């Protein structure tokens, strides 16, 4: 059996058996391969991230099976069961917050997307000062939720807030936006739409700019109106942008915690606007019910994966991964 690599490996290895030579050659080739050489580049960040994300998720799942609560003693893994999940399913508060999460997710995502699409089409109509206008529309996205929550707390102030001032012009109100359990969720959703519609707009604008003007002009030549052209020709091509924006917004709605905490300044937010994300953090860091909080976190994670998995599958099928 001849070895074509003999000349490469040199005479020192020539005395060994063919198998030995083969093994050495392979090792040398392997150590010079792209896999080994590129290994430090992706594996270091990958392992750091993997430890944090997947190690964290695994450990969280494990904790959710214990009865861990209280301060500083660490979980006890001798007795694992699904008690915390049973407790969560029987907890009416979990269902209330689950319902609020769902309302927030649907209303917030839908309205933000529609408004973002509307703004993007408007700015795409070749108006003057487009860049400057886009900068203002996107400005809320550059601010922390802690900051915007303060602004909206003042906007919604029952006696002196701007929102009630505007309603006062029409002889309506004043409404207690924050204090009234019927209104508070709507108020929070409105503020979040304010913050995020600029983001949706930017995503749609990027999508619109990848569509050539020819298509628009061709439709116009065929006698289609502006509205019809958008409806029939342009908007269907924004499917990929829409999916991306919707996923980002839905995931945000699931984990929205900071805005609510900052607006009310405490772990316990009004019942009308309490969502699973706030419930989880409160159970863990205010009440030290670590295992119970971990179980709620797992529920949230499953909900998020139910959004992410179809999205990644869709992206893969589109060939855009």
């Amino acid at each position, binding site marked *: 059996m001849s070895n074509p690599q003999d000349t490469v490996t040199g005479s020192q290895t020539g005395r060994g058996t063919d198998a030995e030579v083969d093994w050495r050659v392979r090792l040398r080739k392997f150590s010079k391969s792209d896999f080994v050489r590129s290994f430090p580049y992706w594996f270091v960040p*990958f392992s750091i991230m993997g430890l944090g994300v997947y190690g964290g998720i695994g450990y969280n799942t494990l904790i959710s099976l214990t009865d861990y609560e209280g301060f500083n003693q660490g979980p006890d893994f001798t007795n694992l069961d699904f008690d915390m999940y049973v407790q969560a399913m029987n907890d009416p508060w979990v269902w209330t917050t689950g319902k609020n999460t769902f309302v927030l997710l649907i209303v917030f995502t839908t309205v933000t997307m529609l408004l973002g699409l509307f703004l993007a089409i408007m700015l795409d109509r070749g108006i003057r000062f487009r860049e400057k206008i886009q900068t203002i529309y996107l400005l809320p996205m550059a601010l922390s939720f802690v900051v915007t929550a303060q602004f909206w707390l003042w906007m919604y102030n029952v006696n002196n807030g701007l929102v009630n001032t505007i309603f006062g012009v029409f002889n309506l109100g004043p409404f207690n936006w924050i204090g009234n359990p019927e209104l508070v969720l709507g108020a929070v959703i409105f503020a979040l739409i304010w913050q995020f519609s600029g983001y949706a707009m930017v995503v749609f604008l990027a999508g619109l700019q990848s569509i050539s003007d020819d298509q628009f002009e061709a439709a116009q030549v065929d006698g289609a109106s502006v509205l019809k052209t958008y409806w029939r020709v342009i908007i269907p091509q924004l499917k990929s942008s829409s999916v991306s924006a919707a996923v980002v917004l839905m995931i945000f709605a699931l984990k929205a915690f900071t805005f609510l905490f900052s607006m009310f300044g405490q772990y316990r937010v009004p019942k009308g606007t309490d969502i699973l994300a706030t419930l989880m953090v409160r159970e863990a860091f205010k009440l030290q019910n670590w295992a119970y909080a971990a179980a709620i976190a797992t529920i949230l994670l499953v909900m998020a994966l139910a959004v992410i998995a179809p999205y990644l599958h869709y992206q893969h099928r589109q060939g855009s991964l």
Partner: protein
Amino acid sequence: MSNQAPTRDDSWASILPDLPYWKIGLSIVITFFFAFFIAPIWTGFVTSFKTSGAVTATTPFVPPGADGFTLEKWGRAIDHLSTGFVNSLIMTFPSTILTVFLGSTAAYGLTLVDWGKRAQFAVLILFLVGIFIPYQAVLVPLSDFWINIFPLAEILSPVWELSFMEYDHARLLSLTITHVVYGIPLCMLLFRGYYLTLSDDLVEAAKLDGASITRIYQRIILPLSKPMIGVVFIYQFTAIWNEFLFSLTLIGSSSSPAATVTLVLSGLGTDLSGIDFGLRMAGALFAALPTLIIYALFAEQFAKGLAADN
């Protein structure tokens, strides 16, 4: 307009672009949304310069008159927030730089080097899921990790002998590391999108010349990445500066000497008599200052980062 408009919408819509009121209408709508987006920020801005009396007595968005004007709220806000502000700076810069660097190398190893398409795809998917998971799913392990498993404060105990360092600052270090860990996936994705647009020929030619993977990264990819490094840096800096959930859960109390600016802000100006809105608004704007400056200078890069993260 009304007497001209026929009932069928396509006939009136088709004549609209020729008429100036189409543009007038567009301008009105654009101005309306301009006011909509700027109103809360503007209202906060003018309120931060009002005396407590003027806050309740004047219309929220009208600037204060001469007798209602004060800089006292800004002074107090800066007093309260300056430690948090410095802490945030100390945390944000190293974690941003590290995240950007690790994101870039990860994207390089996954796009421009081919070491098995299927395995690379699997690693990519694991990164992508890491972008989207709700952080609530790792909060309990994270706090357990930094308190019980890897108590940084005790490991570094000799350092606290130094006069200017305090025990609590270990938490700031934990927070910095945490931000790096969870920032990597998104930075990787942003760089990946950019590296995919680079031509393969460049790397192939360098390889034929015998350049190693490391050399290609240092000599070709890193210099070419400059515009993207700017985008990712701005995006990541803003994200980490604005972040709150990790600060709250890892540092815990807004009175801690290691508290970040967002953490201090969340409790600012509240006492039994209610909220001092002038102080709150001044504090909010002060805390937002670095991101506002970055945004004013690099709005275009910020928008690019946002649009590219899907």
